């Protein structure tokens, strides 16, 4: 695989090059997905230029304002997992990013790379979905923001065009009293992609009624999404063991509805049910 290697120094230059070489160009950031394609010779043969954004300061930051947390596209999983702002406002994202691969992978892999690759098992995605994350995308002439839930087309395909650069991912600060959880199941402990993962964010009022509930299981639907039907089972109610059980069953039936019955269904059905039940029980503190 032959290509020229470009290292623009600011975002405008990146977008200019993306536009100029449209159809023949690809971005590399942390490279943890890209390098595997390169090694397996699976990069598209049309690619003639690689644009490296891994050293761009302008893509590497975590900021907060009164309402929002804003994370630069090139921020690494380790930088996110160890960041005080993220740990304060979105521990679910800290936990999810901290579960990715290995220390070496987390030191290179970035948030934007994780979502662009669009693996159904991407760990940052369920966390960002329960935070109602938004993706800011820039071209040489436009900037737009789209909800993360609209970002995916099918497994390993996201709605990013070749001339587009993700610049940041942001979400509204959830109320401080929110509780959340992230759980993933892997084959080995370290260095593994999730087989199943799930993120939950909830807010209960002073009489325990659930005011906010967001549930996003990963790896069980073609594109990651929030399970609103499941959320509605518990919303505005006080959580009980029975309701949680019903919600967990709902998750596994929604999975079959969306993904059909596959070779992995027999395994995933009981496992996702148990994972959902456990995480809801823990987050909602049901005895």
């Amino acid at each position, binding site marked *: 695989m032959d290509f*020229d290697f470009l290292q623009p120094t600011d975002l405008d230059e990146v977008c200019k090059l993306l536009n100029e070489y449209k159809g023949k160009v690809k971005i590399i950031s942390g*490279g943890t997905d890209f390098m595997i394609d*390169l*090694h397996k010779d699976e990069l598209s043969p049309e690619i003639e230029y690689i644009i490296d954004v891994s050293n761009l300061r302008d893509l590497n930051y975590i900021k907060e304002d009164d309402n929002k947390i804003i994370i630069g596209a090139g921020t690494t999983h380790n930088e996110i997992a160890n960041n005080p702002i993220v740990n304060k406002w979105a521990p679910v994202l800290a936990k999810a990013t901290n579960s990715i691969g290995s220390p070496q992978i987390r*030191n*290179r892999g970035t948030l934007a790379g994780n979502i662009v690759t669009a693996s159904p098992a991407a760990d940052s995605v369920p966390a960002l979905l329960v935070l109602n994350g938004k993706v800011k995308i820039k071209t040489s002439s436009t900037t737009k923001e789209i909800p993360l839930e609209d970002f995916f087309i099918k497994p390993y395909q996201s709605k990013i065009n070749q001339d587009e650069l993700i610049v940041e991912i942001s979400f509204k600060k959830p109320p401080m009293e929110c509780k959340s959880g992230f759980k993933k199941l892997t084959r080995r402990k370290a260095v593994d992609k999730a087989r199943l993962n799930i993120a939950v964010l909830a807010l209960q009022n002073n009489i325990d009624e659930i005011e906010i509930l967001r549930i996003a299981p990963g790896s069980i639907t073609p594109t990651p999404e929030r399970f609103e039907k499941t959320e509605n089972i518990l919303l505005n109610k006080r959580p009980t063991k029975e309701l949680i059980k019903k919600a967990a069953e709902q998750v596994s039936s929604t999975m079959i509805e969306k993904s059909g019955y596959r070779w992995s269904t027999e395994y995933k059905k009981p496992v996702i049910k148990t994972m959902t039940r456990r995480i809801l029980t823990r987050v909602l503190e049901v005895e």
Partner: protein
Amino acid sequence: METLSLEFKVNGQEHKLSVTPNKRLLDVLREDLNLIGVKEGCSVGECGACTVIMDGKIINSCMVLAGQAQNSEILTVEGLEKEEGKLHPLQQAFLDAGAVQCGFCTPGMLMSSYNLLQSNPDPDEEEIKDAIAGNFCRCTGYKQIIDAIKLAAERMNRQS
């Protein structure tokens, strides 16, 4: 394909190399600089045999494109020896604790544990396990490696 002029510091020494852009950092270290302590195992980021320290962080050198190391500072296992022929306390401890069997994982293990001890001179067992979670060893079952890191930490703390 235009060649790329790569300037970076490796084990304290400045280098300026002309490389083809599709090379990995791993290839440049092994082939252009002959630092064959950097091992290639899986080639896909899973085994950690190719671990080096880049700008203070452990990374898999099979996951980095050569040009991405522009202006960086790299430390490989060859850079651990401070004086010619004298092992780093970690290396000595790996030998003393029987943590080296076939030795293939050792350079990567050393880099991950060196990096750990830089920021945490007195790690507990969990911290050690987390630090080497991205390094696979097919021979030792990890116990000897964990012991070696504890032993090195102890010796280094006594020295200082």
